[in-house]
C-alpha cells in the first residue's frame, strides 16, 4: 500500500507500536498480579504525591467517612503513618488551597460523612488546577484506570523503581508512628519560612483571600446538599504569624462566609507544645499530636461515632 508505507524502512514504525503494546501488556499484567505495595510517602515529589493521594481517594478510599481538605500544612498529617485510622483520609494537596480538595470531592461524586476544612495560610496558595481534577474524575478515564491500573500515577515506572530503590537498596524504612520523636527545627529553615509568611502578610493579599473563600463557600454549599457535615479547623503556628494582619483577615473573612453559629470551628489547642519546621508546617511528632486532637474534637462536635 503506497499511501502510508512508501518510504518506510522495514516497517519500524509499526514494529515500535507493537513493542509498546507488548511492554504495556506485560507491565499491566505484572501490576495486576503483584499489586506492588507503593508507599504514598515515597512518592518522588510533592506534585506526584498530590496525584497519588487524589487517585488513591477515588479508587480505594472513596467510602472513608472523614476527609481532610487542606494544603501542605495539613499534609503533615501523613496518610498511613500519622493518620493510622481507616475512618480518615487526608486529601490535602501541597501548593493548593483547600478548594482543590473540595472540588475533587464534588467532582468525584463521593459522600463522606464529614469534611474537615483547613483554614489558614493555605487560602493564599497558588492557583488551583481544576483541569487536572476534571481529567482525573472523568468517568471514562476512571473506568480505564480501573481496568488498566498501569495508568495510575503510583504505578508510573519511575515511581515503582524509586520505591524499589528506597526499600531494597537504601533500606529506607516507613516511619513508625510510635517511634516518632520531637525534633528541634533547623534555625535557618525556620527563619526562611517565617520571613516568607511575614512578607506574604505584608503584601496585603486581600483580593486572593476573598476569591478563595468565595470559591470555597460555593463548593461547601454544594457539598452540604449531599448531607455532608462541614467542619473547619486551624492548625497551630508560630505566635508571631498567628498575629499577622493576613491571618486575622483570613479568619474574619472565613467567619463571614462560614459563621460560627452555623459551622463548627476547631481552634488550635491552647497547649503551645507544638513545633513547626518553618512557623507553619508541623513536625512529624507535632502532627501526630495534632491529629489526635483533631480526631477527638471532631468526634466531640459531631457526636456521630466515626
Amino acid at each position, binding site marked *: 500500500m503506497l499511501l502510508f508505507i512508501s518510504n518506510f524502512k522495514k516497517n519500524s514504525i509499526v514494529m515500535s507500536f507493537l*513493542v509498546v503494546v507488548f511492554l504495556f501488556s506485560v507491565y499491566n499484567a505484572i501490576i495486576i498480579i503483584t499489586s506492588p505495595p507503593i508507599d504514598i510517602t515515597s512518592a518522588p515529589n510533592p506534585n506526584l504525591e498530590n496525584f497519588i493521594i487524589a487517585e488513591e481517594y477515588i479508587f480505594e478510599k472513596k467510602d472513608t467517612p472523614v476527609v481532610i481538605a487542606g494544603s501542605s500544612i495539613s499534609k503533615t498529617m501523613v496518610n498511613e503513618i500519622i493518620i493510622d485510622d481507616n475512618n480518615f483520609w487526608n486529601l490535602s494537596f501541597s501548593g493548593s488551597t483547600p478548594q482543590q480538595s473540595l472540588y475533587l470531592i464534588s467532582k468525584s461524586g463521593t459522600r463522606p460523612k464529614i469534611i474537615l476544612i483547613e483554614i489558614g495560610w493555605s487560602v493564599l496558595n497558588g492557583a488551583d488546577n481544576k483541569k487536572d481534577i476534571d481529567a482525573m474524575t472523568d468517568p471514562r478515564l476512571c473506568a480505564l484506570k480501573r481496568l488498566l491500573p498501569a495508568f495510575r500515577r503510583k504505578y508510573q515506572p519511575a515511581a515503582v523503581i524509586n520505591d524499589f530503590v528506597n526499600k531494597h537498596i537504601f533500606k529506607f524504612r516507613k516511619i513508625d508512628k510510635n517511634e516518632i520523636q520531637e525534633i528541634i527545627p533547623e534555625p535557618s*529553615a525556620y527563619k526562611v519560612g517565617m520571613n516568607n509568611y511575614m512578607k506574604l502578610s505584608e503584601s496585603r493579599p486581600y483580593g486572593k483571600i476573598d476569591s478563595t473563600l468565595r470559591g470555597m463557600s460555593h463548593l461547601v454549599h454544594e457539598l452540604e446538599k449531599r448531607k455532608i457535615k462541614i467542619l473547619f479547623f486551624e492548625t497551630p503556628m508560630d505566635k508571631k504569624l498567628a498575629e499577622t494582619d493576613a491571618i486575622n483577615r483570613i479568619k474574619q473573612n472565613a467567619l463571614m462566609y462560614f459563621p460560627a453559629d452555623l459551622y463548627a470551628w476547631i481552634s488550635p489547642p491552647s497547649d503551645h507544645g507544638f513545633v513547626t519546621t518553618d512557623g507553619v508546617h508541623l513536625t512529624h511528632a507535632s502532627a501526630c499530636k495534632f491529629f489526635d486532637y483533631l480526631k477527638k474534637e471532631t468526634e466531640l462536635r459531631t457526636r456521630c461515632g466515626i
Partner: protein
Amino acid sequence: MLILSTAFVLFTVIVFGIYYIPQLRNYQVYILIIASLFFYYYNNPLDVIILLISIAVNTIISYEIHMHKRHALLFAVLGIVANVLILSLFKYNSIISHALSLGQIFSNKAVKHIAVLSLPLGISYFTFQGISLLVDSYRQTMGVTDETIRIRTFSSHFINSALFLSFFPKQSSGPIITAHKFFPQLEFKFFQTIDWQTTFKYIIGGLFLKFVIADNLKDYTFWMRYPEFTVLSSIDLIMLMYGYAFQFFADFAGYSLVAIGIGYLFGYTLPINFNYPYIATSCSDFWSRWHMSLSSWLRDYLYIPLGGNRKGTIRTSINLLLVMLIAGAWHGGTLNFLLWGIWHGIGLAAGRILKRLFGFRSRNSPLLTLIKIIIIFHFVSIGWLFFKLPEAAHVYAYIASISKNIHIRSNMKLIIPMVLYSSLIVIYHAHYFVKNSPKLTFLHRFDFVLYGLLLFLILLNKGDENAFIYFQF
C-alpha cells in the same frame, strides 16, 4: 496554543490534511502562511500585527537590496537597525520606559504603554531570521554568495518571505533557519516523499525528552528558588544544579526535535539544534553542539563580520566577548542574561588562549578528555544558574550555599529520582562514544525496540505539563 497541546496536534493534523490535497498543490505556501498566522493569532491576536510588520519591513528592504545594488549596503543597514529596534522595544521595554520617564520626552501614558508591552511569541527568532534575509540578500546581490533567494516579482518574494518568517513549527523557539537554507526548499511537496521514519524518530525522541525527562525533572528543580535553597545541603544543591542542566537540555532539545519532525511532515528540513552538548571538551566545542542554529547564526552574521579570529588574540577575545554579550542580551533584558553572556564569553576567550598555550603539547588521552568534559559540564551548569534564578545575588547565594551547607544532611528523596531521570540523559551522551562502533552496528536493526520503549514511557511516565523554558525568549 502551546506546541504539543491537544489543540496544537488537532491544528497540525487539519493543516497537514489540507496541505497535501493534490488539487491544492499550487497553494501549499499560502496554506502554510494562513496556518502560521492563525497559530500566531490563537496565541495572542495582537502579536500577528508585529509579525506582519516584520514580514513587511524585511520583504520590502530585501527587495530594495535586490533592485538597487548601488544602495544595497544602506538598505541592509537600515533593515538591520529596524529589526533590532523592533526587538529591543519589546525585549527591553522596562529599560526603555525607565529611560524615557527619566528624560520626560514622552507623556507618562505613552511610557506606561511601553512598560506593559508583552513579548510577542518567537520575536527573537523571527527577528534574527529577518536579519538573515537582509544579509543573505545583500551578499547575494553583491555576488559574494550564489543565488539562493530567487526574487522574480515583489508579490512572489513577499509570499516566500512571509512563509520563511512565519513557518509555524519553528515559530515559538526555533530552530533558527537562515534565508539561504530555507528559500531553496520552496517547491511543491508531495505526500509520497514524506520521510515518515525520520519524522517519527524526531517526534518521539522530542516528546520523550520533553514529557518524560524535562517535565518530571522540573518538579525537583522547582526547589531552586530563593531563599528556600539556602537551607538545602551542598549535595542537594549540586544535584539540583545538574538536574536543571539536564532538564534544560531535555526541554529545549525536545522542543527542537518535535519542531524538526513537524517541519519534515510539511517537506521542510529545519537545522539540527543539538549534538550531544554535554560531552563538549571546551567552550567552543560546547557552542558547536548547543543551540547550534543560534550559534551558527551568531558566527555567520556577527562573529565573522566583526573580524572573527583573523585579527590577533586580543581582538578575537573581544569579538568573542561581544558576541556572547549580544547572545545574552538576545535572551532577555536582565542583568543575569548579560552576566551569562559574559560568563560564556570569558570561557570561550580563555579556552582559545589556553589552547594556544598548551594545545599542541597535550595528548588527547581518554582520561584527559573525560576531565575536560567534566570541567566544561560544570562550567556550563553554573552558567545555567543565571537562567534559572532571577537575580545575580541569588546566583551568588546559591554558590555560597553550596560551600556553606556541607553540614546539612542531604535529602535522598530528592536525589534518587533526580539521578534516575538524569541518568537517561547521561546514557544518551555516553552513546556518542560507542555509536559508530562496528561491534554495535547490528543494534541499529533494533531501533524500533528503543522507540517502542520511549513511547511506552511517554504513555506511562509523562510528567505534569509545563510550558517550554525557551518560550520566554
